[in-house]
């Protein structure tokens, strides 16, 4: 690889985990939830993280989502080492660079669909007129423009997840983190959600998704298999594992 090519490929790397370890102290015993993770995700890639229960998927997602930090090692997000940032700075990163999609949707029940979608914009300090416009735009994108004034309870599971996706897109993040996004949905609805994620990936979003279902993982371009806190194997079209 020429020097120029190397630089080129490095600029395309959006997430880089460098010897990341996460150790939990359980009394006198140490549990290594993640033991030396080395991997890079390219901008615009779509990854499915798979593995048996207890293999470290959630721990990895928490760290990728800037909700948690490695005990040792580095996490380089869009070229910035975020492994030692404080709580406020991590909040700021989540606010500006990340979008979350959860298995159980995690909408705020007392807020309307519109207000749920607007939530990131509220913390970004947008004014209400701008936020309302953006929320409408996003609702249209997930085909929920007629549901803006509804409360989450009045929606079906698929609709709730679409609201959650709209909310995750509100701050226009580079990376979407999805933790079993179809886990609470029937197959047909799950497939619709996956189509939506594929669409978003095609529009340039980097997507990292945890799933244990093979047919859901098949929507991703790359698959990362975890075992005992380590990367077991990687497959897919393109990858950049170090």
């Amino acid at each position, binding site marked *: 690889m020429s020097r120029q090519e190397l630089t080129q490929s490095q600029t395309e790397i959006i997430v880089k985990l460098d010897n990341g370890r996460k150790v939990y102290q359980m009394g006198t015993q140490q549990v290594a939830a993640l033991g030396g993770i080395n991997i890079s995700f390219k901008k615009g890639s779509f990854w499915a993280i798979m593995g048996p229960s207890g293999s470290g998927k959630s721990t990895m997602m928490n760290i990728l989502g800037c*909700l948690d930090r490695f005990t040792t090692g580095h996490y380089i997000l869009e070229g910035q080492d975020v492994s030692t940032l404080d709580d406020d700075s991590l*909040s700021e990163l989540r606010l500006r660079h990340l979008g979350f999609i959860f298995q159980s949707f995690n909408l705020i029940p007392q807020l309307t669909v519109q207000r749920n979608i607007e*939530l990131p914009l509220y913390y970004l300090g947008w004014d209400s007129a701008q936020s309302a416009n953006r929320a409408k735009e996003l609702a249209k994108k997930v085909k929920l423009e007629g549901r803006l004034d509804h409360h989450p309870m009045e929606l079906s599971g698929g609709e709730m997840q679409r609201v959650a996706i709209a909310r995750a897109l509100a701050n226009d993040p580079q990376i979407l983190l999805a933790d079993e996004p179809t886990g609470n949905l029937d197959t047909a609805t799950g497939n619709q959600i996956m189509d939506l994620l594929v669409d978003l990936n095609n529009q340039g979003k980097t997507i990292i998704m945890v799933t244990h279902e093979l047919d859901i993982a098949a929507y991703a371009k790359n698959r990362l298999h975890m075992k005992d806190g380590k990367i077991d194997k990687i497959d897919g079209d393109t990858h950049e594992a170090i």
Partner: protein
Amino acid sequence: MKQSNISRNILSGIENLMLHKLRSFLTMLGLVFGVGSVIAMLSVGEGASKEALTQIRKLGSTNIIISSIKSAEQESSSTSRSFLSIFGLTYEDHARITESFRNVRQTAPVKIMRKDARLREREMELRVVGTTPEWFDLVQREVIAGRILGWVDQQRQTPVVVLTEFGTRKLLATESTIGQTVLISGNQFEVIGIVKSESGAAGNIQVPDQEVDAYISIEVAKGYFGDIFAKATDGAWIREKVELHQIIVQADKTENVESIANAIEEMLQKFHNKKDYSVSVPLALLKQAEATKRTFNIVLGSIACISLLVGGIGIMNIMLASVTERTREIGIRRAIGAKRKQIIIQFIIETVVLSTVGGFIGIGIGVLIPVLITYFAGMPTVITFQSIVLPLLISAGIGIAFGLYPAIRAAQVDPIVALRHE
């Protein structure tokens, strides 16, 4: 941006209140009653003390008032029909007080009688005050028409009378006032002046001119009506000989009031073999009233603090429950990018909204109660600006103080744990 965030926080605070209307209302109740009772109590206290203070001030802060009283033994013996009880202040007392003290600026002897007055067909009972021109200076009476008693009237013992506004209207009706002749107990008096009426009482101190209708020269009073008064008590006629009902003494400055009063007391003791007089010092009463008011306010303040504290604890309790209930929401907000500080602000604002709404309802009640008290019980009440603003600030302060701990608890929620929370 900051501004709109706060107003949106306030809005969402109100929305959260509306979400649990009954719960919010019950939570606020403690504060509502706390604030309401503070305002009500303060306004009643303020009303009572203000009335007392103005009455006492009316007596003059440099004045000493010496009154004739019937001593207890006389009270019991005077029931016999023919008995003439002799008591009280004398003309000599007045002369001695006037001459003996260097720091006394002026004095006024006062003789008070009830007499029938008559002008043509109009008849009424007057309280006739026999006194000297100094009186008008001592009580600071506003002259509405004509003039007050002068030295010439005093010396020549001319039968002239100064009426109070109230008496004038009743007796003279529409006839022109000055120069009219009225009959008082059959004696002709020429009306020479009209002064403003005042009425009221401060505690047990009667203002001498409280219901006064007519002022005449003391020499005239003595000459025409004498010193013996008959009055009906329990169906029997009791005759009393009282030379002076009051002596009003004015000190040159307030610092000397106390010592003069003591000296007068001492002197009177020497010349009276029984305690048939009392010396009262409006200034002392004023100080006492102010001290009482202070104590009153401290007691009320403490009660208020306790009730507000109870209200605050109620609010804190519900906010802690709310934080636990909304752990997941907090986790979502944190995952989306809310900083700890923003979670704290959100919960504090919600608490302040709760407590301030409670405060406002409390103010409504607190303002209504004194109005009702005044209307139904006739008690004076005064609602001051402070008595409204203070409880409102306190209830907002309670929101901050008691909201702080739940808010910090909310901010400490770990989003990873919270998102797993069902």
